[in-house]
């Protein structure tokens, strides 16, 4: 079998095929469309498979190929998300043709509808907290002490370490309080992999539309409290529910 050179790039599954994607373009400017099967939809656009060649082995940069493609992918998912619930698919999902697209929907319909039902009417919001870990202060001899005795030195050192530990415990407590408080406005949350640097917390919240105002007010209060502990809260959103499409279609439900 010869390797195909074109296919259909799939962005998301929707609980209805009634999505107006007129004028919406996806990867490489291809027009987005919805393929229907049994009242569920698959959002797709035509793709030359060479477009994705080697894309993951290149160094990712702000204006690199992967960044451009990821933004194009996101734009289509968002266009659908503004109208209906979406189950976003992982970047790089490509099917050969319309027949395969409909089979994808037929095989995964029930599982997809279960996830769509859970995320419908919700938005994903990302909350990241960054800070600089404080180092315990060093034990410095007092000027008027010629030289502290071993006992004095150890006692002082213990005091300094205990103080640092207390501060760290307090900070941890504030972080726990903040995550719990934000969770009150959310239907679900998922801790995201730490993206490095000085990130101490990275959580995605699935927020019902009716709770968004309350959630945002809570993040403002949280940001103020965290800033007292040298922590900075960053919020991103709204996102389509990327972090809550935790469905693995590897095993089909109707098998």
């Amino acid at each position, binding site marked *: 079998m010869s390797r195909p050179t074109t296919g259909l790039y799939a962005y998301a599954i929707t609980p209805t095929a009634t999505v107006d994607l007129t004028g919406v373009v996806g990867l490489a400017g291809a027009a987005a469309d919805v393929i229907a099967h049994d009242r569920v939809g698959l959002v797709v656009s035509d793709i030359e498979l060479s477009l994705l060649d080697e894309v993951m082995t290149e160094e990712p940069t702000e204006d690199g190929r992967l960044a451009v493609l990821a933004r194009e992918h996101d734009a289509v998912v968002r266009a659908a998300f503004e109208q209906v619930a979406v189950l976003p698919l992982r970047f790089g999902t490509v099917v050969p043709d319309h027949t395969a697209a409909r089979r994808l929907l037929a095989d995964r319909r029930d599982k997809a509808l279960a996830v769509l039902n859970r995320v419908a009417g919700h938005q994903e919001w990302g909350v990241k907290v960054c800070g600089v870990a404080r180092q315990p202060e060093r034990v410095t001899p007092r000027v008027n002490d010629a030289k502290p005795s071993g006992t004095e030195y150890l006692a002082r050192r213990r005091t300094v370490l205990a103080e640092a530990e207390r501060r760290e415990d307090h900070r941890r407590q504030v972080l726990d309080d903040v995550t719990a408080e934000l969770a009150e406005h959310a239907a679900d949350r998922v801790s995201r*992999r730490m*993206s*490095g640097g000085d990130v101490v917390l990275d959580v995605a919240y699935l927020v019902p539309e009716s709770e968004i105002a309350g959630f945002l007010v809570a993040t403002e209060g949280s940001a103020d409290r965290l800033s007292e502990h040298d922590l900075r809260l960053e919020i*991103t959103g709204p996102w389509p529910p990327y972090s809550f499409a935790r469905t693995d279609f590897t095993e089909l439900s109707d098998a």
Partner: protein
Amino acid sequence: MPDVHAVAGTSLVDLLDRVVDRGAVVNGDVIISLAGVELIRLDLRLLLIAIDTTAPPHSAGGAR
């Protein structure tokens, strides 16, 4: 109602982490196998970008 369409401070890391590393995984015979594209986790490379983009600007010329 706040302006929920204001995506504040969305970095490339946040975007890639969601678009490339999240989302439902579909595989099986309906999927075209694109060498190295699907099912790849970007952990290490994302980590590298994160460190690049979170480094304070004034440290750019610092000693290595």
